[in-house]
């Protein structure tokens, strides 16, 4: 029996089409996997379902009723609950208080019936097989318990369909198994789930049916039992074509960076070497540890083991200053949080890092700094009126070039680029790729971390795929394609 039917859904944001003609069908008592790469339109579709966005076109029927264009409240009342990746729980309240929040039971005088509510919460937990103390402070609960508490809360409000957005991201294997048991139990009693995950093994273990989206379009749906991980991966990435004309093999120089059995928070036993002029790609799913690995190399966190050598010189680790002195630079992900100094000019944003290394000469030679800015402005094609303009007056791509200049200005030889094209429009992206290739030709060693595989196909000489903090596969330039990378980054190759 059909529970949810979304058909012909269209959505565009400021003229850019995000969803075009998407279908989603979920039956009563089934676990439905919603699959797609980052940016395929999954979140937008779920936000339309939960009422956060309104679709431009298309219809949504749920449980026999047309709920197209309903408000968040109406949709909640109809029985759809969204369990977000960032949990919507109140950490400073008790478990039962979270369940009853906004629906508290009171005496005629308005005081809370605390014991009644706690007892009902305990009953609910028992019925679901969840082991949570109703009086526990939510902040003290484990991530898995919080997840289950949120599911319990949804069910307490008679949800018929639960959307689980990457629910296993922060859980360990046992917790995942426990949660799956509960989810299966609920399914057998008639509750439906939409399950969003990138982890292929989980999907094939838990789900009954699936829908695949790609670039905002409906690609396929069917029964999980009729397909294989490899087939689904192919559907996910499609026969994506990419021009490789920018890439050409380069002569590589001497060894610049040697990483041996390097371990730290989020990554384990990583070993590789990088040579002068080489571009190395790191990739994997969100949370695979590649970003942490970069931060470890740059000395942001203390490593827990292993060796890093730059030009034959061993680093102690855990000091940004040491890494900078050795010639390592890092362009961090999330430009706005981690790179932009918002109250400062382009020039000031550029020269800061170099000044850390040359702090002994106290005064700033503005003329010389401006000459340098001009030099990098030309080299990187920074489009700005004046070096005195505020950094926020530039577009994302041009800001990123200023930060690239910040690090080139320190004369760094090893550039760590963490997701360098995040939030940059397509035209500027390809410009950044060309700059990266250009820098490598001039003898810089570049390590680039990105979740976007087309990006790696354009630039990387070699690519390391990470899964749960370990390098699971090394791919040469010609082997880099979305199918292969997906296969290894979801660990479905075995």
């Amino acid at each position: 029996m059909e529970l949810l039917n979304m058909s012909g859904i269209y959505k565009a944001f400021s003229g850019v089409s995000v969803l075009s003609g998407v279908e989603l069908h979920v039956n009563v008592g089934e676990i439905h996997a919603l699959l797609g790469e980052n940016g395929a339109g999954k979140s937008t579709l779920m936000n339309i379902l939960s009422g956060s966005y309104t679709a431009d076109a298309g219809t949504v029927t749920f449980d026999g009723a047309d709920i197209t264009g309903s408000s968040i409240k109406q949709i909640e009342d109809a029985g759809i609950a969204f369990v977000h990746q960032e949990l919507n729980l109140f950490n400073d309240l008790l478990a039962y208080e979270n369940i009853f929040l906004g629906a508290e039971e009171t005496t005629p005088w308005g005081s809370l019936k605390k014991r009644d509510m706690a007892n009902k919460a305990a009953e609910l937990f028992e019925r679901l097989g969840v082991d949570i103390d109703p009086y526990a402070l939510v902040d003290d609960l484990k991530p898995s318990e919080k997840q289950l508490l949120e599911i319990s809360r949804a069910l307490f409000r008679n949800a018929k369909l639960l959307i689980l957005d990457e629910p296993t991201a922060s859980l360990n294997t046992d917790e995942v198994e426990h949660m799956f048991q509960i989810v299966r139990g609920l399914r057998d009693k008639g509750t439906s789930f939409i399950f969003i995950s990138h982890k292929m093994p989980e999907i094939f273990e838990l789900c009954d049916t699936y829908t695949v989206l790609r670039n905002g379009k409906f690609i396929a749906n069917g029964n999980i039992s009729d397909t294989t991980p490899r087939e689904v991966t192919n559907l996910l990435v499609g026969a994506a074509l990419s021009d490789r004309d920018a890439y050409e093999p380069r002569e590589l120089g001497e060894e610049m960076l040697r990483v041996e059995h390097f371990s730290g928070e989020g990554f384990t036993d990583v070993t590789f070497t990088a040579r002068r002029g080489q571009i190395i790609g790191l990739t994997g799913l969100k949370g695979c540890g590649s970003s942490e690995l970069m931060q470890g190399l740059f000395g942001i966190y203390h490593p827990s083991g292993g060796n890093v050598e730059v030009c034959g010189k061993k680093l102690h680790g855990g000091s940004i200053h040491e890494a900078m002195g050795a010639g390592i630079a890092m362009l961090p992900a999330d430009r706005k949080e981690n790179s932009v100094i918002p109250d400062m000019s382009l020039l000031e944003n550029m020269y800061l890092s170099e000044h850390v290394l040359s702090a002994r000469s106290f005064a700033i030679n503005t003329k010389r700094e401006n000459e340098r800015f001009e030099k990098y402005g030309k080299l990187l094609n920074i489009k700005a009126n004046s070096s005195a303009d505020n950094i926020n007056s530039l577009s994302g791509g041009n800001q990123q070039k200023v930060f690239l200049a910040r690090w080139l200005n320190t004369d760094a030889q090893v550039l760590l680029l963490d997701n360098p094209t995040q939030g940059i429009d397509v035209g500027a992206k390809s410009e950044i790729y060309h700059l990266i290739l250009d820098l490598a030709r001039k003898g810089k060693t570049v390590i680039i971390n990105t979740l976007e595989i087309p990006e790696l196909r354009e630039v990387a000489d070699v690519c390391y795929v990470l899964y749960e903090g370990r390098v699971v596969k090394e791919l040469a330039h010609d082997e880099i394609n979305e199918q292969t990378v997906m296969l290894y980054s979801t660990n479905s190759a075995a």
Partner: protein
Amino acid sequence: MKDAAVNKKPAPAGLLNIVKTYSFVLVFLVIYIVYASVSGGFALGAAMNVFRHSAVIGVIAIGMGIVCLTGDIDLSVGSMLAFVAGFSVVVFNQTNSIPLTLLFAVLFGALCGLINGVLVGIVQMPSFIVTLATMLIYRSLSQYACQHIPAELIGNGSSVFRMSNALDSYRAFYAFGNGKVAGIMPIVGLIMVLMVVLFVYICTSTKFGKKIYAVGSNARAAHLAGINVSAMRTLVFVIAGALVGLGAFLWIAMNASADPATTGKSYEMYAIAAVVLGGIAMSGGKGRILGVLFGAMSYTVIDKIIIALKMDSLINDTIKGVILIVVILIQVAGPQLKARFGKSKVVK
């Protein structure tokens, strides 16, 4: 895209921009004109006197200014002034040496600042709490010491640190505190102006100064750009402490004594008010040290207006408070009104 549009400031006309940037000068001028009109016209002597009476709070406010530029706050400066001034009197009475007293005052102030700085910058405690605690500690220690050290060390005073006027250097020291350069400019005022010049230079034209702004603007990005944020946050407290030390030296030169109970009382609030009036953002990263000078002098002139009008001095803080609110109200409400005005125009 949307954020960029929000952050992008519409380029105002050149003159308007200058007025906006240096609004603290405007505030000072308005207050000064009021003073001149109630005290019977402009007089050079009276104007120079403003420098003298701004000297101590001005020097302290510079330190507060750089602490605020990193996004922190130092509530302990008033107590620290009493603490350092008291012990500087003791050092002077023991050594009969002006240079040694100066050296002690600056180093002892820097040490007091270092305690704040280590707790804030390295231990990462909130500066509000740390300096609230040291504010209590420094004043209490000052008062306790005054009661419990031998009376000859504090010039035989009972509850006040008094410089012994029997010493050879006493006359020279007092002359330094109350003398004038070329018969016009008070020496202590000149020292404050020199400090302002020094710190304007540091904040606008040195690598160290730019790092202060970077830390206050976005500490995380500054850290990832290689700046040692902990060290910077510690250092600004040390500098602020050293400046309080200099202020304490000027104080005893001017007054020949320091009262642990009242010296520097509420100075932390006046210093913060001067910093805010001078256009430095309490959230850090924005503002000019030059503004601090005008902020501090504005408040000195308010004192003088009240004296000139023969008003009860107890009304003093009411007026200072009201002026602070009015100035900030104009700064905050101005753009809001403009935004609303602009919006309604679009609707039509």
